[in-house]
């Protein structure tokens, strides 16, 4: 009991870079190494490009909707890069860039938003759960996956993502509590982007920070500047290592900002001002990282061009893939409800097939 103060997160979010991209003095964690920083930068650039490209596809009517992580790419990058191959990622609808950074084919990821099917990728291929829509529900699945791995003696870590709004749901509480009680190796990574659609953080919580919620579960918690890529990486690396080595679940809150509307269907001008948004432009994670790498002479022109090219290639593949018209087979509607369709589903499938054949489809 004497050490419950250790459960309090740091007073200020961990920072390695200031807003101009200069290293801050007296940082509490070391910088990730050079290779990791370059990998992170690559992922940042691709993430931004993915967000932009998806936005364009929405405007062209190729995607119905896209919840962009523009401005949150440092978090997206960190979430993916902190994991080992055998680990699991549990993303939300906003974490497309993280899913792609983990290796999933962007076109498969966008199946959902294109409307062809629900989850478009194989969750087992890269150990990425389907993107979750019902808020906070996926956090419990993450605990289950982690607990199962632990019971089998595997050293899998599960990274479970959610937003600030989702922390208000009962499932958030139950997930953190189950993880803590069972010491399940989960890193709960909350991207606090200040909004849940139109609802500001002050309506979600009266706590000093969302990381403070860790105390109530006896869980280590940390806060990080979510637009500071090296810091996000360093904090998540530490959290993943702690979870992996049996220190139990970890809670990390990243302070970031949702630069765009909730989705293209949203009108952010109804609830926040340009004056509020503008200062965040200066904190852009990509600019900060680039400034740092340049200052450290880690980013040559050639390197940069190569990365930009890679990002362009991803965008092109995305554009082409998403623009391909797929005609999902209605018969599939009945195929996956159960491992083997019930007699009733067989009847219903036959009914539809008959209907379609009569329509000459």
């Amino acid at each position, binding site marked *: 009991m004497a050490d419950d103060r250790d459960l309090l997160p740091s007073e200020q979010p961990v920072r390695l870079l200031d807003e101009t991209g200069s290293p801050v003095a007296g940082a509490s964690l070391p910088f990730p190494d050079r290779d990791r920083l370059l990998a992170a930068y690559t992922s940042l650039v691709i993430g931004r490009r993915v967000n932009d490209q998806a936005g364009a596809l929405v405007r062209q009517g190729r995607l119905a909707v896209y919840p962009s992580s523009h401005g949150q790419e440092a978090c997206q990058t960190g979430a993916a890069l902190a994991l080992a191959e055998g680990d699991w990622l549990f993303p939300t609808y906003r974490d497309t860039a993280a899913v792609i950074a983990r290796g999933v084919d962007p076109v498969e990821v966008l199946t959902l938003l294109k409307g062809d099917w629900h989850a478009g990728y194989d969750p087992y291929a890269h150990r990425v759960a389907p993107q979750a829509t019902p808020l906070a529900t996926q956090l419990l699945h993450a605990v289950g996956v982690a607990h199962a791995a632990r019971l089998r003696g595997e050293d899998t870590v599960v990274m479970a993502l959610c937003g600030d*709004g989702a922390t*208000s*749901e009962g499932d958030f509480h139950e997930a953190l509590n189950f993880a803590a009680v069972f010491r399940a190796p989960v890193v709960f990574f909350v991207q606090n982007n200040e909004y849940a*659609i*139109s609802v500001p953080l002050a309506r979600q919580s009266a706590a000093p920070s969302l990381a403070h919620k860790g105390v109530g579960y006896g869980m280590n918690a940390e806060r990080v500047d979510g637009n500071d890529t090296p810091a996000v990486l360093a904090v998540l690396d530490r959290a993943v290592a702690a979870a992996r080595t049996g220190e139990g679940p970890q809670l990390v809150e990243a302070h970031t900002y949702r630069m765009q509307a909730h989705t293209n269907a949203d009108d952010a001008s109804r609830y926040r001002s340009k004056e509020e948004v503008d200062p965040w432009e200066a904190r852009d994670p990509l600019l900060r990282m680039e400034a740092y790498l340049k200052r450290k002479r880690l980013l040559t022109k050639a390197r940069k061009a190569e990365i930009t090219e890679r990002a362009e290639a991803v965008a092109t593949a995305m554009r082409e893939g998403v623009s391909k018209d797929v005609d*999902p087979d209605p018969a599939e509607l009945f195929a996956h409800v159960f491992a083997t369709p019930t007699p*009733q589903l067989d009847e219903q499938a036959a009914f539809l097939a008959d*209907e379609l054949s009569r329509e000459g489809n």
Partner: protein
Amino acid sequence: MATDPTKLSMAQALNRALRDAMAEDEAVYVFGEDVGPLGGVFRVTDGLTAEFGEDRCFDTPLAESGIVGMAVGMAMNGMRPVVEMQFDAFAYPAFEQIVSHVAKTRNRTRGRVGLPMVIRVPYAGGIGGVEHHCDSSEAYYAHTPGLTVVAPSTPADAYFLLRDAIASDDPVVFMEPKKLYWGKDEVDLSTPEPPIGRAVVRRPGTDATLIAYGPSVPTALEAAEAAAQEGRSLQVVDARSLVPFDDATVCEAVRSTGRAVVVAEASGYASVASEIVARVTERCFHSLAAPVRRVTGFDIPFPPPKLERFQLPGVDRILDAVDDLQWEDQ
């Protein structure tokens, strides 16, 4: 309150109903996710915070059980809360509150504690929504004793049913067919629609009766129109009030034609459509020339946007079902 007929979308009619109810009764409070400054993701609560202040229409933390549970307490304490669940599937976290408290409180307290509250649920498909945004969840509520459950099919109906729901001393689950939010229609605010508990014959007809509600009513009307072209006269009954159900109107309609098709978007198994088939058959058995047919969603999770048209009851499918009503026996 203007009394001239005006053209309103269903979303606007609902908004108008909320405004009028809030203006008339200061016990009416509106809250939920994004219902304040944003005005709701469907703009049904647009302008209410500005007009009535932050106390009367406000955003809550993001937690549906919390929203419904808090509404229970406010209703216990003299208020008439109207809460919004953002989408059908996002009401499920509140299921325990709804089934174990909202539905049961009057009964368990022997009538001492009534809960005058409305749970608005934008529901069903037809708008190309992604998974978890298109569930037809009315059966869960309709099966639960103690809940009044209604579904409007026109802007005027939406206005008056919502006013009625807010005025009710009992909890009402108010199912709003999302795909009808934007369609405009004349609304004459001076001519009330029938109260909760009453079905409405939306189109007369003599050969067979279509029984529909909510999002399926316009489709049933379209089907009747198409049938008329082919010389078959279909009557269309809008059930509107799923609980309490208007057996009298529905059964009179079915007896008058001797044939019936129930049209509903929800998966058919153990659904409100099953109930309508069962109760109509029980009551009208010897007037029926053929078994009552159902046109419902298949027993599958709601499909992705590209496939949703196969799940939704359409005009052709309804007409096929009508064709199937054993006309050869005539």
